[in-house]
């Protein structure tokens, strides 16, 4: 079987700082990582390959330095890595991104064999849109299975797949057909460490680098800024509330008294709560 996993190199959002005066993102020194949600997709792909045989291709679109993430994917055990990089892709929104990635997946299919499954993480931690996966599925006319928490069964001969899918308030059990696109939920598997063999192989591996033309994209008007119907007009910092928390600390007070003071203050500010807070000893 052939599985393609779309990953994204993202800034580690936990370490992003905003310049206090200019309100711009301070990118310098911010480490980049593989989007954490994509690692669950990669792991799931590797597990399927380990059971059913075949190959896993990691794919990313990004600047040349996104190669680092692909190399990392190889150390986890991916068999091959493709970097889609071209200045024409700069400024892509989710619609343009899904176009470029879908074209690259078609090309990957032509060269390395058509994928049975395309995986992505449920969303990225920088964009948070969860739109690129569904976008790729629609572009390629693939069955779309989002927020998948478990792949229950996969029958390559019958071209059938059964998955559990997270939905509001429960889990949907779905039956679908291959090929399909799956966006994987976080926490669904334990991400492997990668073997020494994989690390050595990754260090030696060539990363396939494709420009738009290499990926067979003829219509550049569908790429990058030109192919993006959404445009960011304004970026600004959230307005800080001027008043800070009223701190009711005193070090010499007993904790019980402090707690009492706090509860009195809570009810003073939100009188309705006194009736609403339910005391239920049996709960």
């Amino acid at each position: 079987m052939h599985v393609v996993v779309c990953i994204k190199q993202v800034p580690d959002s936990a370490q992003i700082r905003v310049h206090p005066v200019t309100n711009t993102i301070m990118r310098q020194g911010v480490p980049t990582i593989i989007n954490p949600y994509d690692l669950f997709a990669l792991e799931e792909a590797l597990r399927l390959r380990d059971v059913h045989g075949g190959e896993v291709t990691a794919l990313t679109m990004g600047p040349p330095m996104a190669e680092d993430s692909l190399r990392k994917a190889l150390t986890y055990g991916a068999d091959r890595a493709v970097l889609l990089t071209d200045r024409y892709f700069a400024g892509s929104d989710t619609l343009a991104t899904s176009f470029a990635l879908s074209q690259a997946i078609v090309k990957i299919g032509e060269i390395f064999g058509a994928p049975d499954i395309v995986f992505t993480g449920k969303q990225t931690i920088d964009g948070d849109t969860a739109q690129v996966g569904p976008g790729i599925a629609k572009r390629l006319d693939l069955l779309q299975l989002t927020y998948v928490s478990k792949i229950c069964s996969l029958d390559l001969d019958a071209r059938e797949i059964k998955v559990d899918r997270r939905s509001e308030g429960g889990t949907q059990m779905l039956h679908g057909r291959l090929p399909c696109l799956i966006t994987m939920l976080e926490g669904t598997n334990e991400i492997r460490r990668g073997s020494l063999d994989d690390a050595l192989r990754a260090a030696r591996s060539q990363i396939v680098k494709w420009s738009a033309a290499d990926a067979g994209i003829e219509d550049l008007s569908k790429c990058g800024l030109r192919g993006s119907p959404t445009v960011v007009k304004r970026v600004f910092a959230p307005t800080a509330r001027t008043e800070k928390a009223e701190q009711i600390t005193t070090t010499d007070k007993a904790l019980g008294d402090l707690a009492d003071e706090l509860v009195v203050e809570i009810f003073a500010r939100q009188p309705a709560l006194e009736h609403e807070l339910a005391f239920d000893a049996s709960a």
Partner: protein
Amino acid sequence: MTLTANQETPPPAVGRAGTKKELPEHFKDYRHVWVFIEVERENVHPVSFELLGEGRKLADKLGVKLAGVVLGPPGDATQQAIAEAFAYGADVAYLVENPLLEDYRNEPFTKALTNLVATYKPEILLLGATTLGRDLAGSVATTLLTGLTADCTELDVDADGSLAATRPTFGGSLLCTIYTLNCRPQMATVRPRVMAMPRRMNKPIGCVIQHGVPMLEEEIVTKVLGFLSDVRSSNSNLAYADVVVGGGLGLGTSENLKLVKNLARVIGAEYGCSRPLVQKGWMPADRQIGQTGKTIRPKLYIAAGISGAIQHRVGVGGADLIVAINTDPNAPIFEFAHLGVVTDAIRFLPALTDVFTQRLSPHSRDKLAN
């Protein structure tokens, strides 16, 4: 099997970055504001009502109608969803009634909604950023080749009538305002609890426009084998809880989470946590509060041992009263909390739980009333 990509160009125009041009002629008849009414297992998701409240403001500004879109099987639940849409402010309801729309599946829902949009041409289409809404919105926007702005926190209409959609970016540290240029409809998703719930009105049923979309079960690849409802009430309740207690890294060990759970139990609250706790595996992801977790909008939020990273702030900004407990008087949480207690949450939580227990037992409640 080979994959082919849809490279054909349908009517919608491609965007032109940064330049707002005169809309192409065939977009000028795109009018009205639509809200997708999310019905799953016979219940309307409250985010639909929140969106109707917001959609009402946009429609009034534009001087157009507000419509609710209901996709579902024939039956009471679908009719009820339409009645609810009117009660929360819709002028019109668009309905695709089909037995194949019983459980949510991407294919028939995408087909029905895409077909409705192509036929009746809304200017703005809003959906909830739920698992269902995000799954559906991405497919519909790609099919229509239009823009989609995810997880908006603010929607407005600018001077020339374009939708200005504001959303957090870079993990919530900045906000950006996004326009969909030269494409229609302008689509956006909004997370539950970001917009205020509008008042429910007793309104007679309005105009329902039924639309038939031919669909055959044989053409739908996905089959629903079953549904397992969450026994753990947490999964759906956190976003809609009136009182929430949250725990952060300041609790020190996963063992100490019981202090948060105890307080929550005593005051009938839901409990959640900040992102690091989920990453450490101390709590399941569906209890995470913040930018990549749940947005909450309770009357009272007690944050224990949470430093208040920007990602967390995005998720709790709508709370009426935020009480923070943290040892560090300079923790960012005190910048947006209303009340702060500078102390060790591990020691303070049991004391607070005791006080609430005393005050809220039925006996002492009676006493307080006198």
